[in-house]
């Protein structure tokens, strides 16, 4: 933990400072607005809000002073998160604050930290992650993007995918292969890649439900300065491990930059009555089978919320390791699938067609109810089995062979 400066304010003084700055400078949340808004307006607004937080001296609470932060301990961070709960936070900076910043603090050299961290805090730079590739996501250490040293620069070639907000990011933290002649985990390096580098092509990825929050990037002869390396060359897997721990921890704590709004914190059991309304409208409300299905969907959503509360508290208290987040991801996949089925069953023909802008799009609920985003259900189950239950790993064919000798996928979609 960073040393607390001797002139640290009292918690109460800090709370009042945060409160009075937020009330004057930051807009309140608007009910129903999306958590992330990946478009010109959303990105610009978040940069504006983050800039304001920086001007008020209330951001980067636990970041050491030498990198532009406040150098306070985590109790002050909790205070900030509580006070910020009702306000629109710059959530498009989530990757930067939750993942990149703590990973940089742990592994980057002084120069890199001083160069990049202040620009997160002052709202200049939105960051994304270049991890998954079209050739493979679950087997991250098997990635194909390569970085070759060429005099004063690194030259990168490859492709990345599943980058959230790639088209509105200023920088990426990028895992690439620097030595293919050693086993796969030993030949990786973590880089900083400016998104405006010549040779980077960002293509929004359109998902089956029509959403376009993710991107795919082509990386063709991209040059970056020799010192844009986080940690040591060929030690990138260690950095990536830190990164993934930070990500899981943030997911466990709540990805948002603010605490959950106090009004929603302890609402007990609450139900989405969309299915019940549908049953009433369609004359099925007296059907015991339909009533059981509606009840089942309420059981699923309620137990899911209760489990999120329990597991996040358990991780916070150290009762569960960070891998506990795998329980939540796997559960949301299973719950979503069943709720998608129930929606179809109650909706009947309404799941096939609806008037534009009208109705709950029950068929789409079924279409997009998979456990894939943020790591497939299968990877979560591996983590639960191996990390929580202590079951042995599957034998693997690739741990000791040089990467160059492994069987690999080619990159799909590239000619």
């Amino acid at each position, binding site marked *: 933990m960073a040393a607390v400066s001797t002139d640290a304010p009292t918690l109460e003084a800090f709370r009042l400072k945060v409160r009075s700055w937020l009330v004057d400078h930051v807009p309140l949340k608007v009910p129903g607005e999306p958590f992330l808004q990946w478009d010109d307006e959303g990105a610009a607004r978040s940069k504006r809000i983050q800039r304001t937080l920086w001007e008020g001296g209330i951001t980067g609470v636990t970041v050491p002073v030498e990198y532009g932060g406040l150098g306070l301990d985590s109790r002050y961070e909790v205070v900030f998160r509580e006070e910020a709960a009702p306000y629109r936070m710059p959530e498009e900076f989530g990757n930067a604050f939750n993942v990149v910043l703590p990973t940089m603090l742990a592994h980057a050299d002084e120069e890199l930290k001083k160069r990049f961290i202040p620009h997160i805090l002052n709202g200049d730079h939105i960051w994304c992650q270049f991890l998954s590739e079209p050739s493979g996501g679950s087997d991250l250490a098997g990635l194909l993007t390569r970085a070759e040293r060429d005099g004063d620069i690194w030259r990168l070639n490859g492709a990345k995918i599943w980058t959230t907000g790639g088209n509105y990011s200023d920088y990426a933290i990028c895992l690439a292969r620097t030595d293919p002649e050693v086993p796969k985990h030993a030949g990786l390096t973590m880089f900083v890649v400016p998104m405006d580098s010549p040779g980077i092509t960002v293509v929004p990825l359109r998902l089956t439900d029509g959403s376009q929050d993710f991107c795919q990037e082509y990386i063709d002869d991209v040059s970056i300065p020799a010192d844009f390396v986080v940690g040591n060359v060929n030690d990138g897997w260690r950095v990536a491990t830190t990164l993934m721990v930070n990500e899981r921890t943030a997911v466990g704590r709540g990805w948002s930059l603010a605490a959950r709004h106090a009004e929603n914190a302890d609402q007990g059991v609450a139900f989405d009555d969309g299915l019940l309304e549908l049953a009433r409208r369609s004359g099925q409300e007296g059907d015991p089978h339909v009533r059981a299905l509606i009840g089942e969907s309420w059981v699923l959503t309620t137990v899911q919320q209760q489990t999120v509360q329990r597991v996040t508290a358990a991780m916070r208290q150290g009762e569960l390791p960070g891998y506990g987040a795998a329980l939540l991801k796997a559960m949301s996949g299973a719950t979503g699938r069943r709720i998608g089925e129930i929606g179809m069953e109650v909706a009947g023909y309404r799941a096939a067609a609806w008037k534009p802008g009208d109705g709950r799009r029950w068929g789409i609920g079924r279409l997009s109810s998979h456990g894939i985003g943020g790591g497939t259900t299968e990877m979560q189950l591996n983590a639960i*089995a191996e990390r929580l239950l202590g079951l042995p790993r599957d034998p693997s064919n690739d741990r000791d062979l040089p990467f160059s000798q492994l069987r690999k996928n080619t990159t799909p979609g590239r000619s």
Partner: protein
Amino acid sequence: MDSRLTVELALTETQQLIQATTRKLLEERCPITRVRELIDDPVGFDPGLWSQGGDLGWYAMLVPEEYGGAGADSSGLVEAAIISEELGRMVHPGPFQATNVVAAAVAEFGSDDQRQEFLPSIATGQTVATWAYLEPDHDWSPGGLSVSVTAVDSGYVLNGTKTCVQDAASADLFLVTGRALDGPTQFLVPATALGVSIEPLECVDLARRLFEVRFTDVRVDAAAALGPVGQAEEAIERQRQIALVLQCAETNGATEQGLAITVQYSKDRVAFGRPIGSYQALKHRMAEHRMWLEASFATTSHASHSVQGRHLDAPAAVRIAKAHVGKWSTAILHDCVQLHGGIGMTWEYDLHLYFRRTIGNEVLYGSPYELTKSLVDVVEGAA
């Protein structure tokens, strides 16, 4: 398997003590070998151990302090759930849940005389109490009650049949839920009352004794009524909520133990040159079980606090908890047997004792299907 789960993430010192003493007593005095002996015992549980449980406060958590209990006004329901989890882990026999339900009912709805007469001896374990509620070929809703309560000169006469009454043969006191002209009514009936006859049922759970109890012209004093005649609806709902919380906690303990046995077996058992637990086809199933089990503890925790604190969402919260716990406990233990292969199907292997308990618990006090349907009624009724 990772460390044992419990209904509370962070136990208070008192809760730790309750858990540790209960666990120690059960491990020393009633390990699974002893549970197996009791399967053929005429009583079905160990009366000496029942009293020792009383010394640890097993039946005192829902009894107010002035009557020899540990708390006031059911404030000890979470503590009782912690005990119930431990009993479930050891598939312990005996009417722990039923006795606690009766204790809570007397404490909350009884007259001063009834509290004075029954609570101190229930709290120590001296009086074994059980709840006669369900009737043959009826569901768990109070609307189906038909045991008749007829007013006579100085009291009432009960007629009718109850089923799935736990440990009726050992009980000293029955809480009988019947129907008077005005509506559902409850009485405290001593087991020695004339006209009470019992018949043992064959039970899926080998460590649990359930009985049919027949009331033939059983005369009771007016003072034996628990609460106002014809107005027991609220008490019945409250008793069911307490029963369901304790049952969910017990089921969770049994399920966790069954899964722990299975995970260990899959680490030890080798096939095709490696532990069977290293195959994804098996380990993913155990990981899913671990996931639903965590959810079972989460929803039981919510329900126990909700019922203990009489929160507005208590009727919904217990139904949700039981619907989830009931469904997944049997699903998990069914698959645990499958994951074992042949050994899991043998009488000598302990797994079926746990599976049997979850099967019984899934349907007693309301099946997941009944409770899931009634959840919509509860929400509509509250709206």
